């Protein structure tokens, strides 16, 4: 893996499969009585959260702690950011404290990219959601969940991609960083994506994305674009909406909400997913969210394993001292190969 994880597009097919495979091993360690591994002892991971988050921050914190890294949590509320401190000064402060990795969530699209490439710090940067741009670890945990169920039948799917699987992503695509990252990663893994949304909630330029677009959820669920393997519902992000994108919540719910009769239209093995937080009764009804094909709670559990894998791949092998060792030494004696 590269030094940073800023976009799902940073991963090629082999790289994405590697993250999922490592996540599988990490998930196995989380079944044990002692869940902690010593792997990242002495490393410091800073969670830099400029936006509210439950799942992602706790998930990154758990992942870093399970790998024995030290975790510093920073949230914009209650910090000097409310006194007007800039991202740059905050980054310089973190650098001075010796952060090996910064996990950043920011309301501005591109903030993680700026942090990674402005030369303010030397650590790895992980994008934990920036504005309406990307949320790559969410896409990775969704892909992990899909692969586990669709390819591994609930067990191991080591080395597999998602070739030929068909996933519908439904709802507020316009404001969704989860949708962007998922579209990129699912295409990398060979899956076909159908975006289902009202025209007002699709971004300009969506025709250039590697997806099929539909305005009609019922037609898609009926197999209008082929049998679906999973439906991913998106949260309607009212807090980012500065205009009227649909006439009323009830109309949206009627046309694009997933309820029990709609989820009954899906093929038997198809999954119902939601990245959370859910607006129950709005984009997804309670019985669809809690039904047997829902993986919503499992997605959260898988998030820890996937984030452990990302932190492991970014931090474990990286070192300032590696360059001065002759390459040949790495192959010396014994049971492990170069």
């Amino acid at each position, binding site marked *: 893996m590269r030094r940073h994880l800023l976009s799902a597009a940073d991963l090629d097919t082999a790289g994405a499969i590697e993250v999922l495979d490592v996540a599988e091993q990490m998930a196995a360690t989380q079944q044990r009585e002692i869940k902690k591994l010593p792997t990242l002892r002495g490393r410091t991971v800073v969670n830099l959260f400029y936006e509210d988050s439950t799942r992602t921050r706790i998930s990154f914190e758990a992942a870093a702690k399970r790998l024995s890294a030290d975790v510093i949590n920073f949230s914009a509320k209650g910090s000097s950011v409310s006194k007007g401190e800039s991202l740059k000064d905050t980054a310089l402060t973190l650098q001075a404290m010796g952060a090996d990795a910064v996990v950043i969530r920011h309301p501005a699209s591109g903030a993680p990219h700026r942090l990674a490439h402005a030369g303010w710090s030397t650590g790895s940067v992980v994008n934990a959601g920036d504005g309406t741009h990307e949320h790559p670890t969410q896409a990775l945990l969704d892909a992990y969940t899909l692969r586990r169920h669709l390819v591994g039948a609930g067990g191991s799917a080591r080395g597999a991609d998602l070739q030929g699987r068909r996933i519908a992503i439904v709802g507020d695509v316009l404001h969704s960083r989860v949708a962007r990252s998922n579209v990129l990663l699912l295409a990398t893994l060979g899956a076909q994506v159908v975006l289902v949304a009202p025209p007002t909630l699709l971004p300009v330029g969506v025709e250039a994305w590697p997806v099929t677009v539909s305005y009609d959820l019922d037609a898609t669920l009926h197999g209008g674009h082929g049998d679906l393997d999973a439906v991913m519902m998106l949260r309607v992000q009212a807090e980012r909406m500065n205009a009227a994108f649909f006439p009323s919540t009830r109309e949206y719910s009627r046309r694009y909400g997933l309820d029990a009769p709609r989820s009954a239209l899906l093929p038997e093995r198809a999954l119902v997913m939601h990245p959370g937080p859910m607006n129950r009764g709005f984009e997804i009804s309670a019985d669809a969210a809690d039904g047997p094909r829902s993986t919503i709670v499992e997605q959260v559990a898988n998030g820890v394993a996937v984030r452990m894998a990302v932190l492991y791949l970014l931090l474990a*092998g*990286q070192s300032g001292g590696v360059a001065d060792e*002759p390459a040949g030494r790495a192959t010396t*004696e014994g049971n492990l190969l170069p």
Partner: protein
Amino acid sequence: MDQARPQGPAGRVVMEGHDVQRALTRIAHEILERNKGADRLVLMGIPTRGVALAERLGARLAEIEGVPVPQGRLDITMYRDDLRRQPTRAPAPTKLPDGGIDDQVVVLVDDVLYSGRTIRAALDALSDLGRPRAVRLAVLVDRGHRELPVRADYVGKNLPTSQSERVLVALTEVDGRDEVVITSGPAASGPTAGGRE
């Protein structure tokens, strides 16, 4: 990690197929003698080649005693002390036998014992998985140059080497043939540099 070892420059063959077989048979008898039978015995192979060796040892033990001996595999990647010196590698699966390792006598199986760092990592990994009654170590080759206070209980062959040499173990399951070869490798830059064993 699982690909066959490249055919390096011609080295000195120190063990051939039947030498490896005989060494394993002897180790199997030694384990049974010391353990007074196969009771509460668990074999844990360290990937890649230790797993194949553990399987063969298990088959020998079962042959001699007539009862199956539980086997597992113990990946130590995430417990290594040289992670920062190496390019990152993907961890392999760890598998415990069904009965677990609590209160069992665990025999760790590896191909080459060198610095002792792999075994240090394996002991840490093992203590996260349970509390064995005792831990023993069986290796096919002990080549010396220990950097930690570790010793093997069962050794296939003691092989005096210089640190600039390399010991390459090939096993049928992984490499298509059984063989232990010594070649003169690149000069060592320090006692611990890249100290994989």
